[in-house]
């Protein structure tokens, strides 16, 4: 009896003392932070999806899967590149696995479906790959933040400006015929035409075009100074190949959307990709020490140069980890956690330059004009040739004025009539 009383009382005292010594460890924070990550691991974009997972896990491994005093557990789900599947998986992650927040998805339609789901329940959702303009513009959702991502029409404007400065007056565009293409093309066309250039013609090819010769024949016949190309995946490889076979390479300057010369495309390409210009926030061939450190580490681990998928997920994880440290691991206090993410200025990312979010949840970057060249290992990569500082998703426009114009589509490309 006495012993029990003693044990009880001493136990109480001890625990009370411990409580004073280590304050403010809420019981809700005891377990690991659970992150639900979705990526297409089956279907046509599965290769990109796997790089997303690699990049994401690479960051968490580098910090020992621990942040803000809590363990981190990443639960990966396959969205199959299908919005209905993505929605089902998001539901499972939130309602069954009870993750603290969601991360990922590759295709815009999967991201939009999940964003609409979290709109209703307030679960934080981070989208380093989903570029659909309106998610951080006209239809923004407070708990959806594009950490380390970019809006589709954010990077083509600097390229358009640069093209004007090179003296290009007449440009045609060819793009895959879906929203991501419409938005990137629109960003280019609006700035190029408002700067005094002429968009001579626009071609829209369906996804998975195997033969570009009908388009190339027409392009060759146009009297143009350069061509803007927005293709990704195997379409991009085929376009480069056929462009070169057509004898256009070297005669007609190629201006690419960022995805056109991404590592996921040029990794397997030959000399046909050399010299293509594009614009992006990340250039794996930049001589910035932080970038080169990341590229070397990535190459060592996966034996390939990092693509945008791997890089963006890595940096996105880093961004959120910084915010988790700020709130001492209390990710369940959503409002504070989201505020911390919004306020975070990422300083130690592979970009080597500080990055912050605009008030719409989209990052502001220094944007490179990049050129594809061969590196010392004989691999093609993107090297910066010029930098545009502090480029937001609104270019030089006032956000409120900009958002009054309709979103870019096949029918609205923002082309100024001259």
């Amino acid at each position, binding site marked *: 009896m006495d012993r029990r009383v003693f044990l009880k009382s001493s136990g109480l005292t001890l625990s009370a003392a411990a409580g004073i010594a280590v304050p403010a460890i809420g019981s809700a924070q005891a377990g690991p932070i659970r992150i639900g990550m979705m990526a297409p691991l*089956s279907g046509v974009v599965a290769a990109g999806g796997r790089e997303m997972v690699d990049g994401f896990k690479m960051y968490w491994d580098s910090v020992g899967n621990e942040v803000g005093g809590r363990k981190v557990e990443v639960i990966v789900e*396959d969205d199959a590149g299908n919005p*209905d599947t993505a929605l089902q998986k998001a539901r*499972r992650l939130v309602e069954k696995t009870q993750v603290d927040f969601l991360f990922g998805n590759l295709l815009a339609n999967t991201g*939009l479906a999940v964003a609409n*789901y979290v709109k209703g329940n307030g679960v934080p959702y981070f989208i380093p790959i989903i570029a659909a303009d309106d998610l951080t513009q006209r239809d923004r959702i407070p708990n959806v933040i594009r950490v380390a991502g970019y809006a589709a029409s954010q990077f083509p404007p600097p390229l358009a400006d640069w093209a004007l400065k090179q003296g290009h007056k007449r440009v045609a565009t060819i793009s895959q015929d*879906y929203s991501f293409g419409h938005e990137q093309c629109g960003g280019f066309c609006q700035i190029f035409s408002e700067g005094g250039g002429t968009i001579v013609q626009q071609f829209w090819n369906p996804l998975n075009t195997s033969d570009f010769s009908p388009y190339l024949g027409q392009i060759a016949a146009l009297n143009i100074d350069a061509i803007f190309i927005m293709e990704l995946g195997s379409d991009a490889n085929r376009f480069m190949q056929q462009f070169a076979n057509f004898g256009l390479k070297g005669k007609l300057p190629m201006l690419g959307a960022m995805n056109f010369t991404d590592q996921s495309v040029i990794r397997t390409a030959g000399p046909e990709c050399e010299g293509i210009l594009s614009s992006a926030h990340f250039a794996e061939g930049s001589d910035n020490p932080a970038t080169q450190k990341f590229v070397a580490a990535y190459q060592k681990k996966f034996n390939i140069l990092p693509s945008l998928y791997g890089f963006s997920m890595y940096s996105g994880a880093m961004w959120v980890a910084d915010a988790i440290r700020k709130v001492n691991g209390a990710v369940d206090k959503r409002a504070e956690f989201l505020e911390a993410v919004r306020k975070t200025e990422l300083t130690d990312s592979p970009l080597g330059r500080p990055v912050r979010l605009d008030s719409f949840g989209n990052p502001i970057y220094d944007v490179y004009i990049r050129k594809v060249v061969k590196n010392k290992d004989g691999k093609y990569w993107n090297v910066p040739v010029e930098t545009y500082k502090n480029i937001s998703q609104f270019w030089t426009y006032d956000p409120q004025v900009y958002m009054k114009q309709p979103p870019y589509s096949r029918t609205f490309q923002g082309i100024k009539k001259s």
Partner: protein
Amino acid sequence: MSAQQPVAPPRPVEAPVAPGRGSRAPLYWGLLVAVVFALLPLPLSSYQMSLATEILIFALLAMSIDMLAGYAGLVSLGHGAIFGTATYVVLYWTTVVGGSPWIGVALGIVAATALSVVFALFATRVTGVYFLLLTLALGMIVWGVCLRWTSVTGGENGIRGGGRPEVIADPIVFYYVILAIVAVLTLLVWRFIKSPFGLSLSGIRDSASRMRSLGYNVPLHVFLAFTVSGFVAGIAGACYALFNNFVSPSTVQLSQSVEGLLMAIIGGIGTLVGSFIGAAVIIVLENVVSEYTARWPMVLGGMFVVTMIVAPEGILGAVRKLFRRVRKG
């Protein structure tokens, strides 16, 4: 509450399907399924509830396909498009137009039925594999329109809804509402199939030429059956709009039609109740298997092959066979 729905006045004298087997058997199966579904919310979590709701909706789609495939012998690959058309119309009406969801649901069902009338006008002219190909082509047209008519359908990004109306926002309430709708429709479809009209459909399946020589208007029968089936698929599609709150071309694409057909086949073609079993098996497997491996589509594919070899008459068919064998001793 809705558990009572299937206990409608039993009609024991209704045309027996096969001699030697009680005509009440399907009723018992139906009752069993209804009771199981009515009691589901008790042990399930909210995520599992959403799966159960999805199973009910897809069972309705599978049933609409089974009506044609199992009783009229016409295998359709266009029902995903009919289903998805209703989903599109509901979401377009509620978000772009900003109208009431109830009117949206009504419009969605009307649109799906109208579309199936158009499909049916073509479909009555052909049978067999040509019917399959024609419905496939018509479905592809709908998919193409949804993908390309960006100003209305939002292209491949689709349309995002604003959420369910307040009354049915709660997942449990919504589940029971769907269960009630599905139960009532199942009963109606069952009555339809067992009616003289339904029996003449079976006659057409077995021998169209004999039915024609007996004076039946075969094209009219097929036309009406297809329209009714499209109407049921439309209701499923409208329910899906309320459930998913999002629609994109993947909802109307071929794989949707194929999935509905597979559910009907796995459960057992020509059984109606089998649709519930097929939908449950496929949706649960999709979710369970994908938890363990990224190669889940392969596992599902393998399962389909095995089912086709071991139990070509579907799960319900295999179970019935087993019962019969046990009874015979």
